[in-house]
């Protein structure tokens, strides 16, 4: 069982949290401006990355805050956790960004 560092409460056991999938996929500000393919991409397409991955967790049974986690999906190592809206921490040892930002004009930074 993992320990996850809630940015608000500190290290806590995994059972207190729920998983929220890939991070940094913002709801488009004007969904009506998207064509069907772009909207389908927002709804269903995820990176499912091996290695360092930015994902969302929520401290369900603790402070109920959503936050982001930079976790290695093959080793489970958690490199960093950070608040929603905080700058993305770098992947340790990685020269390039984790993944190319997807070409979606409406996505928030």
């Amino acid at each position, binding site marked *: 069982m993992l320990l996850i560092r809630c940015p*608000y*409460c500190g290290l806590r056991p995994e*059972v207190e949290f729920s998983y929220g999938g890939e991070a940094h996929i913002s709801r488009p500000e004007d969904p009506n401006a998207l064509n069907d393919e772009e909207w389908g991409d927002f709804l269903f397409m995820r990176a499912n990355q091996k290695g360092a991955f930015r994902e969302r967790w929520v401290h369900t049974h603790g*402070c109920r*805050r959503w936050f982001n986690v930079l976790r290695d999906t093959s080793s489970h190592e958690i490199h960093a956790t950070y608040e929603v809206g905080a700058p993305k921490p770098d992947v340790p040892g990685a020269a390039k960004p984790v993944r190319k930002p997807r070409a979606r004009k409406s996505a928030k930074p």
Partner: protein
Amino acid sequence: MADITTDAKALRVSPLEVIGHRMVATSSPRVTINEIPFETQIGLRGDASKAAFNRAVKSALGVAPPKEACTAVEAGDRRILWLGPDEWLAVAPDDTGADLLGKLEGPVAKAGGAAIDLTANRTVIVVSGPDARGVLEKGCLHDLHPRAFPTGRVVGTLLAKSQIFLEKTGDKPETFRLYVRASFARHLAEWLIDAAAEFAA
């Protein structure tokens, strides 16, 4: 909260009233388990960086909400538990309910926050004694050793698969308050009775 008449007060049934005698029967010098029913509980939401919000809370409770995560502050018979970066639980004796809510509701709302009566939402179970930690360790994943969990610490967590706020209120003997939702209270109390059997007299 409307004023509660004396008659209405007499008609209250706490979530653990029916098994209170079994909690007492399990208790021993090594660990006691008690329900403290009907304590006034008020959910506070707001921005702790705003002076108006802090003032509103302090004037009603005698103390401002704690800024430090996972801590509680006390002022006489009142306490405020940190639950999240913009969420606290104010706790006060049974009799203070309507009065306290009246004092908080308006000023807190005016300061952009919210004060909501949660008195019936959860009940409080106190687990105390030299083996209190031993009972809780059977289900609680937190490190409850005094070095890691000092008096005044509060965490939202799971115990017996039930969400609780766990507050440490004393060291000698070690005393913990468990704030549990009313519908889960009986399950949690049954679990505590079972876990405490090892330490029964």
